[in-house]
């Protein structure tokens, strides 16, 4: 009996010490990891989508509440004026969620472009939605257009052999247009 108690006690103690240690490390690195992810995952797409901005886009981010959900919105500024915003939107692709960064020009109500952040699509097929040849489809388009693949009577050239992934990106863009219309005033007011 004593042996069992000892086993339980020692294991519990080890697990507790390890747990505490991990919690401390987690706490210590949390902020930096978040920043690293912003810089390395969102950063390249943002620099592309909000290309002519002069500010540090990742620093100038705001949390905006829509329908009790917090959405991180990145602001692109020129000469101190906000000219465009960008945010992430996800949609279900062929194998998992596709994260799409969508940028909007506030003055012209146009898409500035899109960038694919994360995906788990098939290499060589669905994964090709992240290539410029597909994402350029969305560059400088008026938001009132229909963003659907040509198979669904839209205007977007789907990546050949990857209709599902292309559709997912289109649906993310359409969703973000809805969101954009909802939050545009909030952003403009803050300006």
């Amino acid at each position, binding site marked *: 009996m004593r042996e069992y108690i*000892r*086993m339980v006690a020692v*294991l519990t103690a*080890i*697990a507790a010490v390890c747990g505490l*240690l991990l919690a401390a*490390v987690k706490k210590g*690195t949390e902020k*930096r990891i978040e920043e690293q992810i912003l810089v390395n995952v969102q950063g390249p797409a943002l620099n592309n989508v909000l290309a002519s901005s002069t500010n540090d886009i990742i620093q100038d981010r705001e949390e905006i509440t829509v329908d009790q959900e917090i959405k991180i919105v990145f602001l692109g500024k020129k000469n101190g004026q906000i000219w465009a915003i960008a945010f992430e939107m996800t949609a279900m692709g062929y194998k998992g969620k596709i994260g799409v960064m969508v940028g909007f020009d506030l003055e012209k109500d146009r898409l500035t472009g899109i960038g694919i952040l994360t995906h788990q699509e098939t290499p060589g097929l669905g994964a090709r939605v992240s290539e410029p040849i597909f994402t350029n489809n969305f560059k400088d388009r008026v938001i009132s257009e229909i963003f659907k693949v040509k198979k669904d009577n839209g205007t977007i050239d789907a990546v050949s052999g990857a209709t599902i992934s292309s559709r997912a990106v289109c649906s993310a863009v359409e969703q973000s247009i809805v969101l954009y219309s909802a939050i545009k005033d909030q952003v403009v007011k803050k300006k």
Partner: protein
Amino acid sequence: MKKTIAHEFLKGFWEILPPFRLVLGLCPVLAVTTAVENGIGMGLSTTFVLFFSNVIISSIKKIIPKKVRIASYIIIIATFVVIVELVMKAYFFSISKQLGLFINLIVVNCIILGRAEAFASKNPIYLSAADGLGIGLGFTLSLILISTIREILGKGTFLGMQVMWNSYEPFAFMVSAPGAFVCLGLILALINLFPKK
């Protein structure tokens, strides 16, 4: 034979050089050695985990009950692996993205559990530290060796820099999975040509 720090440290570089002499921990050896950068990252992470798990396990070896020792070792190893993972994500994001899941898989790297069970649980702290460091660095050197061969032949680069002539056509087989096996096999055969001592 008398055990000295120098001997315990040095044996990891030749006598029981992992993975060539021990033939343990082959999963990272085959999977991440497509680029030298990954090889170094993986090797040093493993060394860190190996060193600290050896030290900790050796220092509490007397209070761990025999029947739950493996569970205790795994908890300790897993803790250090998660620490490595978090620190890497925070400070070496690009490597951590390259290595991905393989950092977490250090937990099940047989070398680490093997050293804990075979060495750290029976020897004093200072010897276990020397053992962990030596084996870890030996492992790192082996990974660098394999990844150098594979990266130079398979991509024509070393640490991302072009080293082969301009018209060199990369021998892509070397950076594919079968190439890893062939490369490992050839090095194993070569090392076995030389005696252990």
